[in-house]
Protein backbone atom coordinates (compact mmCIF):
# COMPACT_ATOMS: atom_id res chain seq x y z
CA UNK A 1 0.00 0.00 0.00
CA UNK A 2 2.76 2.42 1.05
CA UNK A 3 4.82 1.42 -1.99
CA UNK A 4 1.85 2.10 -4.32
CA UNK A 5 1.26 5.52 -2.73
CA UNK A 6 4.94 6.36 -3.07
CA UNK A 7 4.91 5.31 -6.73
CA UNK A 8 1.80 7.45 -7.43
CA UNK A 9 3.50 10.47 -5.88
CA UNK A 10 6.56 9.72 -7.96
CA UNK A 11 4.42 9.79 -11.10
CA UNK A 12 2.82 13.09 -10.10
CA UNK A 13 6.23 14.63 -9.49
CA UNK A 14 7.57 13.29 -12.79
CA UNK A 15 4.60 14.69 -14.73
CA UNK A 16 4.90 17.97 -12.85
CA UNK A 17 8.54 18.26 -13.89
CA UNK A 18 7.62 17.39 -17.51
CA UNK A 19 4.84 20.01 -17.67
CA UNK A 20 6.98 22.69 -15.99
CA UNK A 21 9.81 21.92 -18.42
CA UNK A 22 7.43 22.19 -21.36
CA UNK A 23 6.15 25.57 -20.11
CA UNK A 24 9.70 26.91 -19.73
CA UNK A 25 10.74 25.70 -23.20
CA UNK A 26 7.50 26.99 -24.76
CA UNK A 27 7.95 30.44 -23.22
CA UNK A 28 11.57 30.58 -24.36
CA UNK A 29 10.50 29.61 -27.89
CA UNK A 30 7.77 32.27 -27.97
CA UNK A 31 10.19 34.89 -26.71
CA UNK A 32 12.78 33.90 -29.32
CA UNK A 33 10.15 34.01 -32.09
CA UNK A 34 8.96 37.45 -30.94
CA UNK A 35 12.53 38.80 -30.99
CA UNK A 36 13.03 37.29 -34.43
CA UNK A 37 9.86 39.01 -35.71
CA UNK A 38 10.91 42.32 -34.16
CA UNK A 39 14.36 42.10 -35.75
CA UNK A 40 12.77 41.30 -39.11
CA UNK A 41 10.43 44.30 -38.75
CA UNK A 42 13.46 46.49 -38.02
CA UNK A 43 15.28 45.15 -41.08
CA UNK A 44 12.25 45.89 -43.27
CA UNK A 45 11.77 49.42 -41.97
CA UNK A 46 15.46 50.22 -42.53
CA UNK A 47 15.09 48.96 -46.11
CA UNK A 48 12.01 51.18 -46.61
CA UNK A 49 13.91 54.19 -45.30
CA UNK A 50 16.75 53.51 -47.78
CA UNK A 51 14.21 53.27 -50.63
CA UNK A 52 12.69 56.61 -49.55
CA UNK A 53 16.18 58.14 -49.49
CA UNK A 54 16.88 56.98 -53.05
CA UNK A 55 13.45 58.21 -54.23
CA UNK A 56 14.05 61.57 -52.54
CA UNK A 57 17.41 61.93 -54.33
CA UNK A 58 15.73 61.22 -57.67
CA UNK A 59 12.93 63.66 -56.89
CA UNK A 60 15.21 66.55 -55.92
CA UNK A 61 17.71 65.90 -58.73
CA UNK A 62 15.02 65.68 -61.44
CA UNK A 63 14.90 68.41 -64.07
CA UNK A 64 11.15 68.90 -63.61
CA UNK A 65 9.02 68.95 -60.46
CA UNK A 66 6.59 66.04 -60.12
CA UNK A 67 3.62 66.53 -57.79
CA UNK A 68 2.80 62.85 -58.14
CA UNK A 69 6.23 61.86 -56.83
CA UNK A 70 6.02 64.47 -54.06
CA UNK A 71 2.70 63.00 -52.91
CA UNK A 72 4.10 59.47 -53.02
CA UNK A 73 7.12 60.52 -50.94
CA UNK A 74 4.95 62.29 -48.36
CA UNK A 75 2.77 59.21 -48.02
CA UNK A 76 5.73 56.78 -47.69
CA UNK A 77 7.45 58.98 -45.11
CA UNK A 78 4.21 59.15 -43.11
CA UNK A 79 3.86 55.35 -43.17
CA UNK A 80 7.41 54.76 -41.96
CA UNK A 81 7.20 57.34 -39.16
CA UNK A 82 3.87 55.95 -37.96
CA UNK A 83 5.14 52.35 -38.16
CA UNK A 84 8.04 53.27 -35.88
CA UNK A 85 5.56 54.51 -33.27
CA UNK A 86 3.30 51.41 -33.46
CA UNK A 87 3.69 47.76 -32.42
CA UNK A 88 5.95 45.86 -32.99
CA UNK A 89 8.45 48.68 -33.64
CA UNK A 90 7.30 50.95 -30.80
CA UNK A 91 9.33 48.68 -28.50
CA UNK A 92 12.41 50.45 -29.91
CA UNK A 93 11.38 53.80 -28.41
CA UNK A 94 13.08 55.71 -31.23
CA UNK A 95 13.20 59.38 -30.17
CA UNK A 96 11.00 61.87 -32.02
CA UNK A 97 13.80 64.23 -33.17
CA UNK A 98 15.34 61.93 -35.84
CA UNK A 99 11.80 61.26 -37.16
CA UNK A 100 11.10 64.99 -37.53
CA UNK A 101 14.49 65.56 -39.13
CA UNK A 102 13.85 62.74 -41.62
CA UNK A 103 10.55 64.27 -42.84
CA UNK A 104 11.92 67.79 -42.73
CA UNK A 105 15.14 67.09 -44.66
CA UNK A 106 13.13 65.71 -47.60
CA UNK A 107 10.01 67.87 -47.62
CA UNK A 108 10.68 71.36 -46.33
CA UNK A 109 12.80 72.80 -49.14
CA UNK A 110 12.53 72.42 -52.90
CA UNK A 111 9.57 70.10 -52.40
CA UNK A 112 6.88 72.15 -54.12
CA UNK A 113 6.40 73.36 -57.68
CA UNK A 114 7.05 77.00 -56.75
CA UNK A 115 10.80 77.58 -56.91
CA UNK A 116 11.72 73.96 -57.65
CA UNK A 117 15.28 73.56 -58.97
CA UNK A 118 17.20 70.39 -59.87
CA UNK A 119 19.81 69.70 -57.18
CA UNK A 120 23.39 68.56 -57.67
CA UNK A 121 24.53 65.35 -55.98
CA UNK A 122 26.75 67.37 -53.65
CA UNK A 123 24.23 70.10 -52.81
CA UNK A 124 23.45 71.07 -49.23
CA UNK A 125 19.93 69.67 -49.58
CA UNK A 126 21.10 66.24 -50.76
CA UNK A 127 23.73 66.21 -48.02
CA UNK A 128 21.02 67.07 -45.47
CA UNK A 129 18.82 64.18 -46.60
CA UNK A 130 21.73 61.73 -46.44
CA UNK A 131 22.62 62.98 -43.00
CA UNK A 132 19.04 62.77 -41.66
CA UNK A 133 18.62 59.23 -43.05
CA UNK A 134 21.94 58.11 -41.52
CA UNK A 135 20.94 59.57 -38.15
CA UNK A 136 17.54 57.86 -38.24
CA UNK A 137 18.97 54.46 -39.20
CA UNK A 138 21.69 54.81 -36.59
CA UNK A 139 19.05 55.63 -33.97
CA UNK A 140 16.88 52.65 -34.98
CA UNK A 141 19.85 50.25 -34.87
CA UNK A 142 21.09 51.64 -31.56
CA UNK A 143 17.64 51.19 -29.98
CA UNK A 144 17.26 47.73 -31.58
CA UNK A 145 20.48 46.54 -29.90
CA UNK A 146 19.37 48.12 -26.62
CA UNK A 147 15.76 46.92 -26.56
CA UNK A 148 15.74 43.63 -28.46
CA UNK A 149 18.20 41.34 -26.66
Amino acid at each position, binding site marked *: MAAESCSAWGNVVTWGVVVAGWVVVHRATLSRERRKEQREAVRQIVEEIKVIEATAFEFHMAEVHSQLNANALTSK*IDRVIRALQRQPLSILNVP*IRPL*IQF*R*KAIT*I*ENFDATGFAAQHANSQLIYGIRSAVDDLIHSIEFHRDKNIP
Partner: protein
Amino acid sequence: MERRVISVAKEFSRYPAGRYQSDGPYSGEAFREKFLIPAVRSGATIVVDLEGARGYGSSFLEEAFGGLVRKGFPSAEILERISFQSQDGSLIQEIKDYIREARAPGAS
Protein backbone atom coordinates in the same frame (compact mmCIF):
# COMPACT_ATOMS: atom_id res chain seq x y z
CA MET B 1 -15.23 79.77 -24.80
CA GLU B 2 -16.30 78.17 -28.08
CA ARG B 3 -14.37 75.09 -29.18
CA ARG B 4 -13.78 74.56 -32.89
CA VAL B 5 -12.49 71.23 -34.24
CA ILE B 6 -10.91 71.37 -37.70
CA SER B 7 -10.36 68.03 -39.38
CA VAL B 8 -7.80 68.49 -42.14
CA ALA B 9 -8.81 65.29 -43.94
CA LYS B 10 -12.57 65.80 -43.71
CA GLU B 11 -12.84 69.58 -44.20
CA PHE B 12 -9.80 70.41 -46.34
CA SER B 13 -8.10 67.49 -48.10
CA ARG B 14 -6.85 63.96 -47.51
CA TYR B 15 -3.89 64.97 -49.66
CA PRO B 16 -2.67 68.30 -48.32
CA ALA B 17 0.32 69.39 -50.39
CA GLY B 18 2.42 72.41 -51.20
CA ARG B 19 3.48 75.56 -49.43
CA TYR B 20 1.85 78.35 -51.45
CA GLN B 21 -1.49 78.61 -53.21
CA SER B 22 0.52 78.66 -56.45
CA ASP B 23 1.49 75.04 -55.61
CA GLY B 24 -2.13 73.92 -55.65
CA PRO B 25 -5.52 74.27 -53.95
CA TYR B 26 -4.57 72.19 -50.88
CA SER B 27 -1.45 74.08 -49.83
CA GLY B 28 -0.40 75.20 -46.35
CA GLU B 29 -1.14 78.80 -47.29
CA ALA B 30 -4.68 77.88 -48.40
CA PHE B 31 -5.32 75.93 -45.20
CA ARG B 32 -4.07 78.82 -43.08
CA GLU B 33 -6.17 81.42 -44.93
CA LYS B 34 -9.41 79.39 -45.20
CA PHE B 35 -9.43 77.62 -41.85
CA LEU B 36 -6.83 78.71 -39.30
CA ILE B 37 -7.04 82.49 -39.52
CA PRO B 38 -10.86 82.66 -39.38
CA ALA B 39 -10.89 80.23 -36.44
CA VAL B 40 -8.22 82.20 -34.54
CA ARG B 41 -10.01 85.48 -35.22
CA SER B 42 -13.28 84.02 -33.91
CA GLY B 43 -11.70 83.75 -30.47
CA ALA B 44 -12.47 80.03 -30.22
CA THR B 45 -10.12 77.41 -28.82
CA ILE B 46 -9.10 75.29 -31.77
CA VAL B 47 -8.39 71.59 -32.11
CA VAL B 48 -6.70 70.63 -35.37
CA ASP B 49 -7.31 66.96 -36.13
CA LEU B 50 -4.44 65.74 -38.30
CA GLU B 51 -5.63 62.14 -38.64
CA GLY B 52 -6.89 60.73 -41.92
CA ALA B 53 -4.64 62.63 -44.31
CA ARG B 54 -2.11 60.69 -46.40
CA GLY B 55 0.88 62.40 -44.87
CA TYR B 56 2.09 65.98 -44.57
CA GLY B 57 5.07 67.68 -46.12
CA SER B 58 7.06 69.93 -43.79
CA SER B 59 6.64 72.84 -46.22
CA PHE B 60 2.84 72.55 -45.82
CA LEU B 61 3.12 72.43 -42.02
CA GLU B 62 5.58 75.31 -41.81
CA GLU B 63 3.54 77.58 -44.04
CA ALA B 64 0.21 76.76 -42.39
CA PHE B 65 1.31 77.13 -38.76
CA GLY B 66 4.57 79.09 -38.82
CA GLY B 67 2.80 81.38 -41.29
CA LEU B 68 0.29 82.35 -38.61
CA VAL B 69 3.11 83.98 -36.64
CA ARG B 70 4.36 85.77 -39.76
CA LYS B 71 0.81 87.04 -40.24
CA GLY B 72 0.98 88.73 -36.84
CA PHE B 73 -0.54 86.21 -34.43
CA PRO B 74 1.74 85.84 -31.40
CA SER B 75 3.28 82.38 -31.07
CA ALA B 76 2.43 82.13 -27.34
CA GLU B 77 -1.24 82.82 -28.09
CA ILE B 78 -1.30 80.28 -30.92
CA LEU B 79 0.30 77.59 -28.77
CA GLU B 80 -2.23 78.29 -26.03
CA ARG B 81 -5.30 78.37 -28.27
CA ILE B 82 -4.54 75.60 -30.76
CA SER B 83 -4.13 71.96 -29.81
CA PHE B 84 -3.55 68.99 -32.09
CA GLN B 85 -4.83 65.44 -32.47
CA SER B 86 -2.64 62.81 -34.10
CA GLN B 87 -1.30 59.36 -33.35
CA ASP B 88 1.99 60.61 -34.79
CA GLY B 89 3.66 62.53 -31.97
CA SER B 90 6.43 63.74 -34.28
CA LEU B 91 3.89 65.67 -36.35
CA ILE B 92 2.61 67.62 -33.34
CA GLN B 93 6.13 68.36 -32.11
CA GLU B 94 7.22 69.52 -35.57
CA ILE B 95 4.27 71.93 -35.87
CA LYS B 96 4.98 73.39 -32.41
CA ASP B 97 8.61 73.90 -33.44
CA TYR B 98 7.49 75.90 -36.49
CA ILE B 99 5.19 78.07 -34.39
CA ARG B 100 8.01 78.77 -31.89
CA GLU B 101 10.67 79.39 -34.55
CA ALA B 102 8.65 81.60 -36.94
CA ARG B 103 9.46 85.29 -36.86
CA ALA B 104 6.73 87.82 -36.24
CA PRO B 105 6.46 90.66 -38.78
CA GLY B 106 8.99 93.35 -38.03
CA ALA B 107 11.15 91.05 -35.87
CA SER B 108 14.84 91.15 -36.75
